[in-house]
């Protein structure tokens, strides 16, 4: 019989090897490919690219749709985050602070946008836009769809936060003669704060990453970072260019996700952030 700690150690070493294959090598390859100089291509007989250059990065910055894509993605995301948050608040307040008939049903309905396949939502939302003649307002349409699609996350996070506001804190503040705003600051805000940040952040990340709506509703001509990366993997697949775009999409979001993970831990350890 192998001692458990020896087994654990062996498993750890195995896992680290797998993780290297799983994450480190693919990402290193992407970084290396993004640094390949077009004049000296990276051939299979070389372990590393012969020359490292930032040519691809400046080339993609100047000559691709990267600038409009970044502008679109990073305008959509904060707007979606703020609006989703604002719209989710009354619902989250009701779920978190009151007991009412049909509460479980309401919670289930709130999950609907996550259950309907995103391509079905995207395609038939476009159909509706055509029917009512609003198909040309692509930015607004995508923003609207993002708000509805990511409401479940904001509602869930904020209703848990509202549940954590303690009634004795509210009563104590009121008994001490605090005005409504002071009650909010003393009793509500400390419990809500991590949830507010987490809700804003998760909608922001989800919106930056969202593909189906942006791809279908945005056709033709409206690009976001994910749709641009997707098209770079298509017909005119150019590995170094795709590597640059992939890193631009992946890296900021990984950093934000790590930050979110911390926030959620401080907000509520039992709560999963949902699917990336």
């Amino acid at each position, binding site marked *: 019989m192998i001692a458990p700690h020896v087994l654990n150690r062996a498993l750890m070493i195995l896992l680290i090897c797998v993780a290297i294959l799983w994450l480190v090598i693919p990402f290193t390859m992407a970084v290396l490919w993004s640094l390949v100089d077009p004049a000296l291509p990276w051939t299979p007989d070389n372990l590393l690219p012969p020359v490292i250059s930032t040519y691809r990065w400046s080339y993609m910055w100047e000559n691709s749709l990267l600038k409009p894509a970044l502008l679109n993605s990073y305008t959509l995301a904060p707007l979606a985050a703020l609006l989703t948050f604002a719209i989710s608040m*009354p619902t*989250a307040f009701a779920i978190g602070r009151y*007991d009412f008939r049909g509460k479980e049903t309401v919670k289930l309905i709130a999950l609907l946008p996550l259950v309907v396949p995103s391509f079905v939502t995207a395609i038939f939302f476009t159909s509706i836009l055509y029917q009512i003649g609003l198909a040309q307002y692509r930015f607004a349409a995508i923003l609207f769809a993002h708000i509805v699609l990511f409401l*479940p996350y904001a509602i869930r996070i904020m209703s848990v936060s509202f549940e954590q506001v303690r009634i004795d804190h509210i009563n104590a503040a009121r008994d001490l003669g605090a005005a409504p705003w002071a009650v909010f600051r003393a009793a509500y805000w400390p419990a809500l704060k991590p949830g507010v940040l987490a809700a804003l952040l998760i909608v922001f990340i989800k919106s930056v990453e969202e593909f189906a709506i942006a791809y279908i509703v945005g056709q033709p001509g409206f690009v976001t970072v994910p749709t641009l990366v*997707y098209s770079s993997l298509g017909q005119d697949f150019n590995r170094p260019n795709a590597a640059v775009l992939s890193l631009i999409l992946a890296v900021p979001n990984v950093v934000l996700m790590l930050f979110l993970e911390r926030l959620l831990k401080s907000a509520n350890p039992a709560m999963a952030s949902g699917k990336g």
Partner: protein
Amino acid sequence: MTRPSPWFISILLLPGIGLIVVFIGAVIYIAIAQSVGFYNLTGDSGFSMEFWEKLIGRKSYWTAVRYSLFIGFWAAVLSVAVAYPLALWLRKPFKGSLTVSAILKAPLMIHGIVAAFLFLNIISYNGLVNQLLVWTGLFDEPHRLQNDSGAVGLLFLQVWKNMPFALLLLTGAVQSIPQDTLNAAQDLGAGTIERFRRIIAPLTVSAMQAALIIVFIDALADFTFQTTVGPTNRQSLSQYMEFFRGRGRWNEAAGVGVTLMALSLIGAVLMALAARLIFRERPIARVVAWYETRRVEART
């Protein structure tokens, strides 16, 4: 908690839940209506089963249905099957367990399209996998691994992306199993598989169901992985739907969309039922019953 008037609650729920109901309701309604000939963007509208008849008569429709079900089923089963042992391993914290779980969950943070690119990079003709296989002598020369017709690459990527999610759900469930129950089973002589089948799986069946359903729906409706790393001789349902839409054939696209929603629902229910039937609940009663038979056996 207090019970306020239903009106007050309705007003509070209106902006959030109301918006969700109207939006998703409209999307589902339009999909169903267009599949039976209403709301045509060009030409006359009116009830007609013509589009369904056409769709059902097509071989490519059934290929897409079978193929998407295949991907959905195996992505769900494999993701859960890989996640279970890992969740059990991480059940009790040990030195480095946080790092391990962070590494395992990292794919959750990586966008699907980026994952597809990373994967394409590794399995390309002159990529690492080919070079390694040639170097070890398993291949005489590099093979074309991209877009393999058996969808092995696609399933690998699905598991890569979805396993961490299943792990997230299962870790919580597995951690809540009382140690006493596991000890009791072990004392009774249950081996690893027996303990999993009789104790762990039945006690965590709801997390298992949730993981199966969510991964199934996600993989069934997959578009990006299919169009980047999937087989080129078959279409997934999402791809098939987008194919019709791209040609302005909205009614047929709607038929495929309705099929996709129906299959998500039916498949999810069946998977949940299957998990429950295979790993029936009442584990404690089973342990006791089992213990009794063992005792009788020992006596005789």
